[in-house]
Every structure is written in structure tokens, then in C-alpha cells.
């Protein structure tokens, strides 16, 4: 249909782009992860697994990795708990206002991530909106300190930011459920609750899996929210990677940690794709 020359011309730029800006950097990272830094702050091209060993032996690294996964898991759960009912309501009960509500869910995505993270800083800070209010109603005498600069603040912010990402695939999955299946279920004597449990929820699982994957993967790699709101106890693995590539000047260790995270994320994506396929019936 198209000439060979045409195909080459069309596919070359993106291929080139991916090679130069993605494949080669990954390859370099891969190499770096086996190298080390000398006392004189130069890269030593020695090939060994020292960096990987460091990651799993030095407490601060693996503990931060675990904490990051914990935070990401909590963000995932809360995003699903918020996103699912919202998607369900929109898909089944919003009627004519469906489009309006849908836009309302989407609009926050147009606002810069930074602005949203900063907004939480203003809300949660010791002189912030929330503490002022709590003091005003005499709920507390002194500002609550745990609100800001804590894992709590990070989970809250990331949940706020990633709930739309969990919502969208769930909503899409719910919208794809033929309504005559719901009618058939009612027709066969199932109450609305039974219908949800036995028909609607099972058929929405691919959306839930996709939404959970988004929320988990995106928040696992997040570094701005912990940087702005996390404080010392809310540090996540990406913050460590950032400092290793920056101030600490230990690119090899940074590369090793990055690759471990990459491996984790890629295997999660595979798992999620497998689950989605297993539960899809279209």
C-alpha cells in the first residue's frame, strides 16, 4: 500500500527518538549500575554487583523502598475506594448530568501537579486552613503536627492526585457493561446488591486492575509530593534516587535503585495485563 521509502521516512523519527532518548539512556543506566565511584569522585568502570548489594543491605535504602511501596499501596486502596463509587454513581445513576460530573472529575487534571501539591501544603500546615479551623472550633488547642511533613500528607496528596487515574478505567469498564445484563440479573430475582456483587463488579475488574496499576505505579515513582509534604518521615525512594544523582554524586547506586524500581514496575504491568485479560469477556 505504501512504498518502502515512505514507511522508512515515517517510522525513522520516532524510532530515532526512542533510541536516543530512551534505549541508550537505559543502557547507560544499566552499565552505571555495575560501576562505582572512587574516593576522588570519579566513576570507576569496574563490573560488579556491589550497588545491588548495597541496596538490599543498607537499611535506609530497602526500608525506604518498602515504605514507598507501602505508601503506594495505601494510595492505591484509597484511590479505588474513592474512584470506584464515583465511577459507579456516574455510570449508573448520574443520568443527564453524567457529562457534567465527568468533566468535574477531569478538570483537576488540567491543574498543574505542583499547584495541587502546594495547595495541600496550605491546607495542612501548622498555620494552614485545616489547623486554623480545628483550633477555631476548639477541637484542638495546638496545631496538629502530624498533618504536614508526614507519610499521612503524602498519602493524602497522592490520593487526591491519582484518584482520577483510578476513576477513568473503572468508569470505562462500567460503561461497557451492557445494561441488559443488569436487567437480566434483576429479572432473575437478584436484588440490586446481589446484582452488583455477582454481575457488575466481576465485569468491572479489568477497570479496577488498570486503575490500581495506574495509582500504584505513578505514586511509587513520585518524588514531588514527598519532597514538598513528606518531611523526613515521608521520604520515598525517588527522593533518594534524586539525591544520589545530585548532591551525593553516586550515579552507580542511583542507577541500580532505578533499575530495581523499573523491574518492579514492569513486572507489575505484566501482572496487571494478565489479570485484565483473564477478566475481560468482550
Amino acid at each position: 500500500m505504501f512504498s518502502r521509502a515512505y514507511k522508512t521516512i515515517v517510522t525513522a523519527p520516532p524510532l530515532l527518538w526512542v533510541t536516543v532518548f530512551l534505549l541508550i539512556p537505559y543502557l547507560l543506566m544499566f552499565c552505571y549500575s555495575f560501576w562505582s565511584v572512587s574516593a576522588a569522585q570519579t566513576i570507576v568502570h569496574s563490573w560488579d554487583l556491589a550497588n545491588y548489594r548495597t541496596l538490599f543491605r543498607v537499611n535506609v535504602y530497602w526500608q525506604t523502598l518498602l515504605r514507598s511501596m507501602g505508601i503506594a499501596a495505601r494510595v492505591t486502596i484509597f484511590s479505588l475506594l474513592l474512584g470506584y463509587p464515583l465511577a459507579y454513581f456516574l455510570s449508573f445513576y448520574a443520568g443527564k448530568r453524567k457529562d457534567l460530573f465527568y468533566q468535574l472529575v477531569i478538570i483537576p487534571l488540567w491543574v498543574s501537579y505542583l499547584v495541587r501539591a502546594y495547595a495541600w501544603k496550605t491546607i495542612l500546615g501548622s498555620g494552614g486552613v485545616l489547623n486554623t479551623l480545628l483550633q477555631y472550633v476548639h477541637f484542638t488547642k495546638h496545631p496538629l503536627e502530624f498533618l504536614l511533613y508526614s507519610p499521612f500528607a503524602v498519602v493524602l496528596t497522592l490520593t487526591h492526585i491519582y484518584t482520577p487515574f483510578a476513576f477513568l478505567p473503572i468508569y470505562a469498564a462500567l460503561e461497557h457493561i451492557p445494561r441488559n445484563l443488569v436487567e437480566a440479573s434483576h429479572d432473575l430475582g437478584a436484588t440490586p446488591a446481589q446484582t452488583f456483587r455477582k454481575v457488575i463488579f466481576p465485569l468491572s475488574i479489568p477497570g479496577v486492575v488498570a486503575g490500581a496499576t495506574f495509582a500504584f505505579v505513578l505514586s511509587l515513582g513520585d518524588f514531588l509530593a514527598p519532597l514538598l509534604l513528606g518531611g523526613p518521615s515521608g521520604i520515598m525512594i525517588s527522593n533518594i534516587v534524586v539525591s544520589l544523582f545530585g548532591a551525593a554524586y553516586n550515579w552507580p547506586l542511583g542507577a541500580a535503585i532505578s533499575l530495581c524500581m523499573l523491574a518492579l514496575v514492569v513486572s507489575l504491568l505484566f501482572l496487571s495485563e494478565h489479570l485484565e485479560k483473564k477478566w475481560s469477556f468482550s
Partner: protein
Amino acid sequence: MATIPSSPAAVTPTTATAKSTLLSIRSVAKSFGKNVVLREISLDIAEGEFLTILGESGSGKTTLLRIVAGFESASSGEVWMGDQRLDRQPPYRRRVNTVFQHYALFPHLTVEQNVGYGLRVAGRPNAEIVTRVAEALGKVRMTEHAKSKPSKISGGQQQRVALARALVNRPRLLLLDEPLSALDANLRRQMQVELKSLQREVGIAFVFVTHDQEEAMVMSDRIALLRSGELEQIATPREIYSRPATAYVAQFIGHTNLLPGEVRQGVVHCNSLSWATQLPEGPVLFSLRPESIQVVSAAKPATPGQLRVRGRVRQQAFHGATELIRVQCLGDVVLTVRTPSGTGIPDEVDLEFSAASAVPVRPSAGRN
């Protein structure tokens, strides 16, 4: 000879005979905004009856079915099952089951799980579910596909699973929404027969919605013909065919000829034809079925009591055992006549029919 039904009251339901009434639809109307879909429909369905709701798309037949099932609520009117008011109950409390147009089988459940769904949500004991599901699958000859997912079986098989899934709950009434429309012609005919015999066997009342008049004639005990949300006629297939109430019914069910005429002093005048009648004075419209007209040779003397006209054959269409010929006669009237195939038809023919076979019908607005 039937008298002309003079008011809409004359077409109100022939109440279910011998057997007792199972479901009673009383003055049900439905509109979506300004769009009136059903107007004051009243009809009764007897225990064990096979009732077909027949109509073109947009006639409101599916809406009526959905009101009985509970997926749609009537704008006014009531639906009763025995002494229970049905239309106030949610669909899951009604002892009514539906076979959906596109079957609506649950894609994530096996055939067996689909059939057992109703029993499971009703909390029946496991042993009972297993026996009844096996029995229902046997009845529709789907036992060997029990473990398959719906996407792995054919349309006809899905159809049978949908039937089993509904019947296994032993509903008092089964609603079928154009269940055969997605099947090809051969399978469709086969399923018509199967469905009818299954209905006899289980003895459950069926309300069957279709736009296919032939299907309605083959399967039904009674046919309710809907047109633009109004009930045109409800009667047995024989009656609706031989005594159509309106011109629309006469045309919708099979072929017919419509002859306008006028009654003056006990005599019908229809072009150059005239015959004695007991119909009231005034304009009148007759439906004359193609098979009640005979082609006779011009040489043959007129049969006593038969009306006779001469005409010219304009068109001939072969239909297997019979042929339909269109004959121009009585000036510009074109009559469709059904004759046995293979008889040589000359260009000029004489036609005969009895005055009794011309059935007076009410004119229908719009389509005549």
C-alpha cells in the same frame, strides 16, 4: 356476517376464556416526554396461554413487555397478577422471567452458572440447584455445553441457554422479546416449533414479542396487534386472519385486497358490484383475501350466489405452491388473487368471490 365494529370499545380485549386470567394489563399508557408510546392498553393473559404481541418497530410492543417485566414503569394504568399488583414491585420480586432479544447471558459465567443464577440468588440449596440446572439444560439439549462460556457457543445455543435460564425458575409468566430475530431463517423456523412445543410441555404462559406476522401466526394461541401504541385487535390467529378488525390488521397479517363501497338501503354498492347486506348505512371498507377469489373460465356460467368480475392480468408472481396474480378489473381496481401454481392464466380472466368472504373492516388512518 360480522357487523362493523363501530367504536374502539369493540376491540377491547376478548377476555381470556376457559382458563383463568393470569396477568391483567389495565389501561396502561406510557409516554417518554411528549412522545406517547402506549395509549390505554388493556389485555388479559390466561394461565398457560401463548400470547404474541405483534407490531412494527415503534409500535410500543417492547415497551409494553418491559412494563410487565418491571424495567419500565407505566405512566398510568395498572398491571395485576392474580390479586397482586405487579407494577408497584421491583423486577426482582416479580414471578416473571424474560428472554432478552440478545439473550443477555452473563459473559463471565459458564452456561451452567448462567442457568443456575436465579436459583442461586434465591438461596436455594446447592443440591437442588444442581438437579434443576441439569434438568433445564437437558430440556433445551445443552447438557454437553454446561461448562462452556457463552462466547464459545453459537447464537442458537445461546438462545436455548437464555430460555433454560428463565424457565429453571419456574416463573408464572415468561416474556420473550424478539428472541428469534437474531437467528437465520432456517434455525428460526426450527426454533419456532421447538419453542411452541416447549411451551406446551412446561405449561407456563408465554408473552412473545415479534414484528414477524408469520412467526406470530405459527406459534400463538392469541395475537395482540399493536400499532403506534394502540391495540388494533386481539384474537386467535385464525380469527385475526379471517376477521380482521381494521384495514391495518388485514394488511399486516397476510395479503389482502381492500375494497371501498357504500351501503344504501341494505345493499352494498362497490363499483359495479352490489349485494344485499345487514350492515348499517354509509361508507364501508371490505377486506378480501387473495385466496377467497377464484379464477374461472369465461365460458363457465356464473355460480349462483357468487359475485363475478372480468379483468386483465397485469402481474404474476410465483410463490411455490401458489401464484399471486394482480388483476385489473372494475375500472381501475387491482385485485390480488391467489391461484394454484401451474394453471395457465390467460390475459383476460373472470374472477368470482362470495359476498360473505368480503369482511368489513374499520378504515385505519394513515395507511390504507
